[in-house]
């Protein structure tokens, strides 16, 4: 079997509103895929369907070759819910010991797992005293139980500080290298940029775009911005030479051009010689690319 998760033409309606509309997706072993979208775009709904927590209306979903939510699928899938929550009266260690038992593993491995997520020191404290980031780590620790073939992580890095975030992605890299497929959701493209193999953008229940970041960047073909700083006293002459430029409040000139016109424009500006003091090229930001796709699909 090659595919860990196969979704074809998945459709889910809530009271007549399409939460997911003909979404298809294929996830192989070792692949890290990020699911992006606004609140209410259908990310959590899709994840809950994959986990078998809620039924769907049309299409087909196969998780590790089994129906979602079946015993066989649940044995091989790990889940980290958005805002992972646990009973406040239990300690982190007790909670992880229980999860180990439920998966048929030895509860003695609890400390080892908590160490892997950097929670060994707080393991014997009640979860009620934990910060949000610490609860998130307990949630992360329980996804490491057993050898899951598919990890479904809903906003896994919310509440984590930048250092923990890096550690978290390092953990994911290790799991993916061992052959686990990873599906994670996020609000922000900046965050998943370098850490995923493929990006899916979900907008109002439809798959607005999918591909690598380079693919998306090319397909979006968003204009490149240029900022030109004139030399002392050369501002009027420069404005005349670059009629399409828009003057900014700080005396600089702003230009925008398509990707394929960029080099020509740069050559022209360079040809203006010492009338130009400085030049900055601003590629379209990840947020721009993301809003480009999510807006287009929303129209």
């Amino acid at each position: 079997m090659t595919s860990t998760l196969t979704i074809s033409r998945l459709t889910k309606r809530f009271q007549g509103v399409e939460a997911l509309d003909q979404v298809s997706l294929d996830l192989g072993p070792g692949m890290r895929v990020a699911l992006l979208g606004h609140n209410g775009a259908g990310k959590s709904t899709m994840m809950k369907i994959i986990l078998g927590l809620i039924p769907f209306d049309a299409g087909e979903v196969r998780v590790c070759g089994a129906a979602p939510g079946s015993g066989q699928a649940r044995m091989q899938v790990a889940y980290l819910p958005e805002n992972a929550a646990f009973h406040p009266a239990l300690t982190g260690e007790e909670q992880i010991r229980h999860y180990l038992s439920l998966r048929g593993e030895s509860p003695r491995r609890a400390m080892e797992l908590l160490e892997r997520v950097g929670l060994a020191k707080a393991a014997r404290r009640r979860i009620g005293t934990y910060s949000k980031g610490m609860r998130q780590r307990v949630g992360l620790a329980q996804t490491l139980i057993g050898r899951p073939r598919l990890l479904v992580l809903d906003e896994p890095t919310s509440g984590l500080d930048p250092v923990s975030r890096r550690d978290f992605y390092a953990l994911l890299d290790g799991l993916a290298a061992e052959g686990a497929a990873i599906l994670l959701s996020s609000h922000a493209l900046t965050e998943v940029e370098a850490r995923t193999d493929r990006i899916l953008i979900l907008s109002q229940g439809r798959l607005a775009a999918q591909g690598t970041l380079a693919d998306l960047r090319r397909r979006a073909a968003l204009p490149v911005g240029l900022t030109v700083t004139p030399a002392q006293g050369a501002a009027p002459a420069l404005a005349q030479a670059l009629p399409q430029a828009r003057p900014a409040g700080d005396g600089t000139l702003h230009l925008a051009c398509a990707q394929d016109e960029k080099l020509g424009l740069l050559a022209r500006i360079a040809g203006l010689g010492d009338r130009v003091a400085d030049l900055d090229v601003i590629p379209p930001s990840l947020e721009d690319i993301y809003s480009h796709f999510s807006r287009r699909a929303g129209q």
Partner: protein
Amino acid sequence: MIRRILSTAALEFRIALRNRWVAIATALMVVFALVLAAAGAAPTGDIGADRLSVVVASLTSLAVYLVPLLALLMSFDAIAGEVERGTLPLLLTYPVARAEVLAGKLVAHLAILALAVCAGYGAAAAAAVWTDPASTAGLPALWRLMWSSTLLGATFLGAGYALSSVARRPSGAAGLAVGLWLGLVVLYDLALLALIVADGGGGFTTQVLPVALLANPADAFRLFNLSAAQATAAAAGVGGAAATIPLWQSALSVLLWPLAALGLAIAAFRKVTP
């Protein structure tokens, strides 16, 4: 399967211990039982029964109110609480059946209830035997009261889980639980009493009443203990009815109700979409 149930039970027991439920339930049963044992000391001479048998009759009346109440208080939060805390979706992605989750909770809550019942009745019995050594004759009745109280508790635990699943929110589940307790334990008997008075010994009293008593787990429990102990003289209320219903019928009701309630709980829990 057993391992998953036991792990769930151990976890739930620990939670109940930290939430002081074990202490509260035990203290409540001990205090009430001792008060009854002390208050029930007076009429012993007139009846000719041993002290413990009289205490058992009083404890039966206490258990009918207190055991369902404790069971519902412990169980109303079982599912609704998980839904509210947001812990249910994650739990249900684990390879554990919903029936196993409920079974684990039941084992823990039932153990706490059994502990409270044994401590309470035990204290009352110790007091009775201490003042009247002949009381040892009432020990079989005490034992019967203990296990039937535990079964009564299981019935209301199951009912509590079912209500908890239906309500989804702890506040709603608490309301439903109080309603169920009032309905089955208090109003049901009042309604029957009113009907008996209105009927005046007619068809209702002879035909419908026995069935109505057996259909209510609390009444069946009371019938079973009173008719089994042959201590009906010491008790008021439905004592008269106890004589007309065979023991095996009330015993069957006491045994079947926990299974029915648990079945209901599992069916209701299966309908919960996280």
